[in-house]
């Protein structure tokens, strides 16, 4: 291809979504992937498209992106296994049920469908859940998907518009409008988008990102065992707390009839190896809610690294102090949900169009101090 208008580093679902949107705006896009497209955090996420309510900025981004997913769901390839199963947030006790009520009010005030289930309705909705749970909150519009084929589908659209994907290409450095590859080659573009997830920090050390390791397990086929994506309301303590290590009950029915089991969160880990201690805690947590799981076979277990920012919001927009560099990373555990909105917001900002939602909460400039310190350090070397 002739000189690209944009180079995107990282062909996970976020990089792929950026590539698809930028190419739709007429840009010639070159995507560089260190491994295989969609093989990083994209393959280690559950593929849960979920609207979240921890704060207005998170709600706005997940809601907007969930709308984009549903608008395009009919175009998704069959392999993307799009299933509008809904999320069922499970309350184990009265305190969590109060939390479900607050969540219900939050969603309804903002026009999102939500339905409170008492103990009996919860049991009817999911008979495999253990008796004695307090109730639940059903969000019917949430869905599940298998993310790697979605990334491939987005990249194909970019390629059909004249863009290019190069895999097994390792980027060594970003310098101005140049991308330096590990083999010494240099590529140039006026716009460089860093979408390499937790690995992004290897290229730009100032990025306020920490890897947050997660484990997943998948069972043999048991069609109909559960019907919704099941998540404990206590999940929020795990996902949004900052403790070094936590697990939560998070089980998803796959289109194949398999059950995908999450979730674990660990800071300070760099090895992708299975940690049997936390895997066992994660499975015990799941069995605590779904006792029948104990009789099923786990076929595979694997891990991945979320890219976590200090405020749990992603980095979408220009990198402070870098003229050509934009960021699309830091999506932590919501990267599948928020990928499509990230691509659209980034393309809108690049084109100078007003985005559909306020992009300020995701602007990397909120961490400008961190970038300034890096520039200062670089200046003294």
């Amino acid at each position, binding site marked *: 291809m002739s000189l690209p208008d944009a180079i995107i580093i990282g062909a996970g679902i976020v990089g792929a979504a950026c590539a698809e949107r930028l190419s739709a705006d007429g840009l010639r896009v070159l995507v560089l992937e260190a491994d295989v497209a969609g093989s990083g955090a994209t393959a280690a996420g559950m593929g849960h498209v979920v609207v979240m309510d921890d704060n207005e900025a998170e709600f706005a981004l997940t809601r907007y992106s969930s709308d984009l997913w549903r608008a395009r769901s009919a175009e998704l390839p069959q392999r993307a296994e799009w299933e509008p199963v809904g999320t069922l947030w499970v309350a184990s006790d009265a305190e969590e049920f109060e939390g479900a009520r607050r969540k219900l009010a939050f969603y309804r005030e903002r026009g999102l469908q939500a339905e409170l289930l008492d103990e009996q309705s919860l049991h009817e909705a999911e008979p495999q859940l253990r008796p004695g749970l307090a109730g639940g909150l059903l969000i019917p519009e949430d869905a599940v998907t298998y993310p790697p084929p979605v990334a491939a589908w987005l990249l194909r659209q970019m390629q059909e518009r004249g863009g290019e994907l190069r895999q097994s290409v390792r980027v060594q450095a970003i310098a101005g409008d140049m991308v330096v590859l590990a083999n010494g080659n240099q590529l140039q573009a006026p716009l460089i988008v860093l979408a390499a997830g937790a690995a992004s920090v290897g290229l730009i050390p100032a990025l306020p990102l920490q890897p947050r390791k997660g484990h997943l397990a998948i069972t*043999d*086929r048991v069609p109909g065992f559960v019907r919704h994506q099941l998540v404990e309301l206590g999940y929020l303590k795990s996902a949004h707390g900052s403790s070094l290590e936590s697990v939560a009950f998070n089980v998803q029915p796959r*289109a*194949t*009839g398999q059950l995908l089991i999450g979730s674990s969160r660990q800071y300070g880990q760099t090895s992708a190896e299975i940690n049997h201690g936390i895997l066992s805690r994660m499975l015990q947590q799941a069995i605590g809610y779904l006792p029948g799981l104990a009789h099923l*076979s786990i*076929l*595979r277990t694997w891990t991945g690294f979320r890219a976590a920012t200090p405020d749990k919001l992603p980095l979408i927009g220009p990198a402070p102090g870098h003229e050509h560099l934009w960021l699309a990373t830091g999506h932590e555990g919501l990267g599948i949900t928020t990928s499509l909105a990230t691509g659209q917001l980034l393309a809108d900002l690049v084109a100078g169009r007003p985005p559909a939602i306020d992009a300020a909460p995701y602007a990397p400039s909120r961490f400008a101090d961190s970038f300034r310190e890096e520039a200062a350090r670089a200046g003294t070397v």
Partner: protein
Amino acid sequence: MREQFEVRVNREAITVDDTTTVAAAILRAGVAGFRQSPDGHWRGPLCGMGICAECRATIDGVPGQYTCQRWCRPGMQIVTGAASDGEAPDELEER
């Protein structure tokens, strides 16, 4: 010589001994398709060491057993394919 005994692979009697894995007994019966993927493709043993999960079949009525990790025992009933009613699947096109 070790004691020989019979197991049944999809109702066919196969003579083995207690150093034969169930996967080997299935192959000896001329069956290469151990199970079917969700979209109906045949799968068979790949790694032979309990990792790939492709050799799973039903042993004595219990589905999903890793046949490469199990020794044959006298009278074992082994059923391959997706059939859960004990029916043997059709012969494979590919061997």
